[in-house]
């Protein structure tokens, strides 16, 4: 550079000297004034040399200054490059998303993370702050903006906030955004660099933990956490109690933490329960224990608690958690219930015995009466009045006998939950019932239509099914329509692994609108019939249910009645 200034000065010097020589030669050739020609030439050379020296000095000075500027610029460029390289490396190395916002021009640049973490492609990413704000969750956006702008107005350099930022797929991620402000010499923010961290997992975990904490704090059950091991010869020390515990026992957390739960024991606490608890702690086993405990004010109460061992990652016992409930009221109710059951069982047994004795004592003389009347039937009686009296006596005795027999049957059904069952042919049973009812049946005009499918035979109690058919058949006969032939249709078929028996007649029917709830009830009569005892359908239902079946009725006045019985085979 120095040489260049010298070169320029020399060139200037040579050209000026050359011009001075040319001018001097011309003035010597064409001018007549000789006196001053030598003087002017010398003067020109002197001036030229002087200006050449001055030119060289100025040029040299400029060169020096420029060289200093250049080296300064080079240094700055190197620093900027280094800084940019560092930024790129940091942006690549960090999982954070770096955001560079030029506030004055409102230009915003994002690092690669905006694509990898939020799933945007380049064309979707906006280059202004509007895009940033538009993707902040509506619920967080206003608060975040307020905080950000108030920060920009303040004189601090650093800002941070948490909000939800929208991903390309429309879902939101929780982020922690930390910003740093760059200001101009007047203190006005010109640039903001931000680092955004995806904290969705932490946030969700935080929400989950907060929820779990709410459960512990809000639950009505008392919760205690203790250390893992015995405290000397005492139970492990308490490290935490929840508010429900304080409510239940009267002990505040600060006065109970650090104590052993032995404090709750008292004179009525069952030593066996304590021993069981100690054994569970030794064996590190979960358990549920009930015992009488004592509150802070000395009141006793029944405590039911689970004790659960908690193991750490190394599978070492770290704590015990106990969930506890005051079951005093439940215990009281249990005791009362047990007492009531005992009393009721005794009363029931007494009543049962009473009914057996009553039944026996009624049946014994009645059987004599029946036997004697059977004997009288074979004796010829001439006295008509006596015959009428005996007939009345016989009818009443048989009715009484039937009633007592039915009541006895009902009593036996209710007392025998597991009745004996055998493979029965329904057709044969019905045939037998018809034979037994023949005398009654033959007094009326009737038509019996049967349709028993063979595969419907199944294990059933023979005497029950006989009794059911007898009752239904005699009912049909008793309650037939006057002046109409009695038609009885009875069928058995297999439906869904059940035998379905349908018994249908065209009799006078029952008004179900009025009697629907009573039709299978005890002592319910629906017609004014002298032999009616109001027991038949109750007995039928009891026997059907006694065999695990169900019975339903459809009936219409003066149209007939239909019974549908279903007996599952298993």
């Amino acid at each position, binding site marked *: 550079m120095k040489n260049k200034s010298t070169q320029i000065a020399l060139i200037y010097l040579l050209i000026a000297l050359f011009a001075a020589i040319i001018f001097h030669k011309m003035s010597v050739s064409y001018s007549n004034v000789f006196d001053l020609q030598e003087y002017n030439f010398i003067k020109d050379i002197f001036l030229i040399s002087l200006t050449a020296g001055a030119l060289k000095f100025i040029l040299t000075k400029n060169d020096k200054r420029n060289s200093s500027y250049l080296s300064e610029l080079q240094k700055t460029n190197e620093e900027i490059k280094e800084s940019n390289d560092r930024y790129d490396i940091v942006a690549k190395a960090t999982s954070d998303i770096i955001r560079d916002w030029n506030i004055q021009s409102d230009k915003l640049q994002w690092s690669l993370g905006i694509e990898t973490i939020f799933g945007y492609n380049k064309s979707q990413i906006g280059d202004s702050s509007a895009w940033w704000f538009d993707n902040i969750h509506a619920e967080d956006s206003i608060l975040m903006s307020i905080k950000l702008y108030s920060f920009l107005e303040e004189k601090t350099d650093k800002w941070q906030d948490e909000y939800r930022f929208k991903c390309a797929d429309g879902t939101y991620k929780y982020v922690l955004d930390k910003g740093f402000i760059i200001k101009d010499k007047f203190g006005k923010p010109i640039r903001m660099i931000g680092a955004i961290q995806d904290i969705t997992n932490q946030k969700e975990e935080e929400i989950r933990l907060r929820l779990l904490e709410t459960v512990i704090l809000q639950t009505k059950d008392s919760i205690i956490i203790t250390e893992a091991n015995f405290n000397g010869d005492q139970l492990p020390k308490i490290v935490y109690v929840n508010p429900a515990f304080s409510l239940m026992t009267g002990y505040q957390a600060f006065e109970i933490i650090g104590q052993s739960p032995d404090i709750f024991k008292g004179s009525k606490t069952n030593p066996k329960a304590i021993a069981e608890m100690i054994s569970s702690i030794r064996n590190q086993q979960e358990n549920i224990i009930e015992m009488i405990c004592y509150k802070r004010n000395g009141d006793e109460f029944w405590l039911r608690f689970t004790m659960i061992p908690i193991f750490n990652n190394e599978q070492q016992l770290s704590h015990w958690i106990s969930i506890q409930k005051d079951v005093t009221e439940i215990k009281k109710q249990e005791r009362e219930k047990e007492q009531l059951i005992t009393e009721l069982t005794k009363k029931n047994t007494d009543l049962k015995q009473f009914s057996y004795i009553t039944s*026996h004592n009624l*049946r014994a003389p009645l*059987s004599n009466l029946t*036997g004697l009347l059977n004997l009288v039937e074979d004796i010829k009686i001439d006295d008509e009045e006596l015959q009428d009296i005996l007939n009345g006596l016989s009818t009443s005795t048989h009715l009484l006998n039937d009633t007592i027999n039915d009541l006895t049957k009902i009593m036996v059904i209710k007392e025998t939950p597991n009745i004996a069952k055998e493979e029965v042919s329904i057709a044969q049973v019905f045939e037998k019932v018809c034979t037994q009812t023949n005398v009654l049946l033959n007094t009326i005009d009737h038509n019996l239509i049967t349709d028993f499918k063979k595969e419907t035979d199944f294990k059933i109690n023979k005497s029950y099914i006989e009794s059911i058919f007898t009752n239904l058949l005699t009912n049909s006969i008793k309650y037939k329509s006057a002046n109409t032939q009695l038609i009885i249709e009875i069928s058995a078929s297999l439906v869904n692994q059940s035998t379905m028996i349908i018994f249908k007649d065209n009799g006078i029917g029952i008004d179900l609108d009025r009697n629907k709830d009573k039709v299978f009830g005890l002592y319910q009569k629906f017609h004014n019939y002298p032999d009616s005892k109001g027991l038949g359908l109750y007995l039928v239902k009891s026997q059907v249910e006694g065999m695990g079946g169900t019975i339903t009725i459809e009936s219409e006045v003066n149209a007939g009645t239909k019974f549908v019985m279903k007996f599952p085979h298993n």
Partner: protein
Amino acid sequence: MLNTILFVDDDPITLMLCKKVISKAAFSDQIITAQNGEEAINLFHNLLDDSEKTVPELIFLDLNMPIMGGWDFLEEFSKPTFKQFHNIKVIVLSSTIDPEDLEKIKEFPMVMDFLPKPISLSMLNKVAEALI
């Protein structure tokens, strides 16, 4: 037709009724009666002493009787003392409906049946058939 049958029942009307039905059915030649279990046991004691007397072939036994009821009689009668009479069949004739009674019958092999009162001709015919 059986030679001799024993009726053990405390009710005279029942006894009278049974006698009449049995004679009507021509079920047995001779009917002997005992009013309770103890009388029946005494009767068998006498039979042990006197081999000349006729041994009943069938016993109709009531359950509810004073002094000694039907079950106590069966307990006593099952003892080895009366071993020689253990081929005699017993029919329990009772108005009981207590399921425990019906279950208890199975404990005594000599009891061949349980019949509800009153005794009837058809019942006797079935018993006769079963005995053959």
